[in-house]
């Protein structure tokens, strides 16, 4: 189910003196099974962009095609789009409301008119995918769970709709390092098992570099750069201008180059950085003799 955005723009306060483009002429296409990372500093339009992909916001111009059809056209059901494109907002645990975990996770499927048997099955599946124990947790109140568990329940609530595209806005924000790693690992596993397309909005360049197959860089409402992590994170100047950092390893190499070290190649992981540095030190050592 490919997603295509054609020249979408979104304007706040149109026609007023404080008119601002939250999105300006953004175009891209996302193929099935991709793992997209969206980076950009706060206010760059990331959140506005993802809300367009399931019809929560309407573009002021341009269109979004899902399965080749404009999602804003009259004969496309928005509810159908929202089933296919699951969106997990930032701090989703603050949106839980039901008395029990099972009921909360079932909210989506119920809204879609899924029969009770299948709903129950989906709830079990979603809790399993988010690595929660159904028997232990299903009948408990979501409000008595720990922060990390609540977040998983909220993600399960979206997974229970069996989306084909899963969009997550900063799923690891505010978690401790252990839960941070666990939640991203969980997303990676869900992607493999359910074969969903994943779109991850993140401030963490290392996560994006490690997980994503393609990265979109947003600045001031525009999509200024897209490509593989290696391509994107080699554009240090452009990223710097967009107020963004680099993955740790790329950051080290960038700093060393600034200090005059002639290290080649686009480096993303710590291992690559260590290898490149050692190779450079050896070369320098030989030359030094």
């Amino acid at each position, binding site marked *: 189910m490919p997603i295509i955005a054609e020249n979408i723009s979104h304007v706040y306060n149109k026609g007023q003196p404080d008119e601002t483009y939250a999105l300006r002429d953004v175009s891209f296409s996302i193929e099935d099974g991709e793992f997209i990372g969206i980076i950009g500093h706060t206010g760059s339009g990331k959140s506005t962009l993802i809300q367009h992909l*399931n019809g929560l916001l309407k573009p002021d111009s341009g269109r979004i095609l899902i399965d080749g059809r404009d999602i804003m056209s009259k004969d496309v059901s928005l*509810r159908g789009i929202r*089933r296919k494109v*699951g969106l997990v907002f930032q701090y*989703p645990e603050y949106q839980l409301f039901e008395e029990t975990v099972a009921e909360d996770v079932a*909210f989506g499927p119920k*809204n879609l008119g899924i029969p009770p048997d299948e709903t129950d099955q989906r709830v079990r599946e979603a809790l399993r995918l988010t690595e929660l124990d159904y028997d232990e947790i299903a009948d408990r109140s979501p409000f008595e769970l720990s922060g990390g568990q609540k977040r998983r329940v909220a993600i399960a609530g979206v997974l229970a*709709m069996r989306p084909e595209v899963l969009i997550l806005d900063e799923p690891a924000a505010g978690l401790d390092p252990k839960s941070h790693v666990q939640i991203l690992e969980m997303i990676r596993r869900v992607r493999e098992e359910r074969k969903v397309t994943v779109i991850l909005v993140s401030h963490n360049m290392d996560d994006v570099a490690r997980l994503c197959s393609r990265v979109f860089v947003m600045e001031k409402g525009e999509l200024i750069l897209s490509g593989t992590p290696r391509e994107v994170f080699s554009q240090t100047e452009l990223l710097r201008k967009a107020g963004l950092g680099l993955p740790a390893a790329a950051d080290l190499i960038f700093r060393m180059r600034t200090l005059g070290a002639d290290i080649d190649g686009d480096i993303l992981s710590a291992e690559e950085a260590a290898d490149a540095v050692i190779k450079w030190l050896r070369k320098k050592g030989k030359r030094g003799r």
Partner: protein
Amino acid sequence: MLRDITLGQYYAKDSVIHRLDPRVKIVAVIVYIIMLFLVRDFIGYAVSFAAAAAVICASGVPFRFILRGMKPVAVILALTFLLNLFLYPGTVLLSAGPFHITQQGLHQALFMACRLILLIFGTAILTYTTKPMKLTDGMEALMSPLSRFGFPAHEIAIIMSIALRFIPMLVQEADKIMKAQQARGADFESGNIIRRVRSLMPLFIPLFIGAFRIAQDLAMAMEARCYRGGTGRTRLHVMKLHKRDAAASVLLAVYAGLILAERILPALF
């Protein structure tokens, strides 16, 4: 759109009206409102209108902004006008089927409409020229003599100022929760009343829980910053009366005098 909502409707400008002490402005509006209810005929309204118009001119707030403030009450205004127009007994001027417009009805309808419009002018000019925080400060100062009799003047003021701070935030939060539930297929728009009210639960419950969480956090943050009620507190903004405030008070007295004279004098003669 929800995110565009801001509380109050302050119009930033540096006019003499903006600079007046909020206490003077609040008292002036109260006096003005009382006078409007004392006015008996259109002469009184003409005087009031002239006074309001003079203040609006001096404030530099464009007239269309004042008119915009009438939008939310337009329905009430129209309803008052029509009810008075058609239902007031008296000499019939015009009639169409069951509807009669009487001379007294027309008079009454115009009279009430004038009163309402002038009321809105008064309150609009107060909110356009006074920042909400200043209004709160002014009210606290005006009410503080009452605290001797156990009236919680400081508490009311702090509640108002916290509301000013957090209502826009809660509105944003509501917008976010609504979108999140919509993303899970929730429908807030269709169905009958009962269905619609029920469909709001996924919005209200997280919103209330969120509000309690904020309240808890805020209470702790206030305590950590040594908040212990109104006693022993000093203020960053101390209100001082200036010459312009004295002048405004004199003008207010002149206006009130005119209205009262107009009301009382004919009765004396």
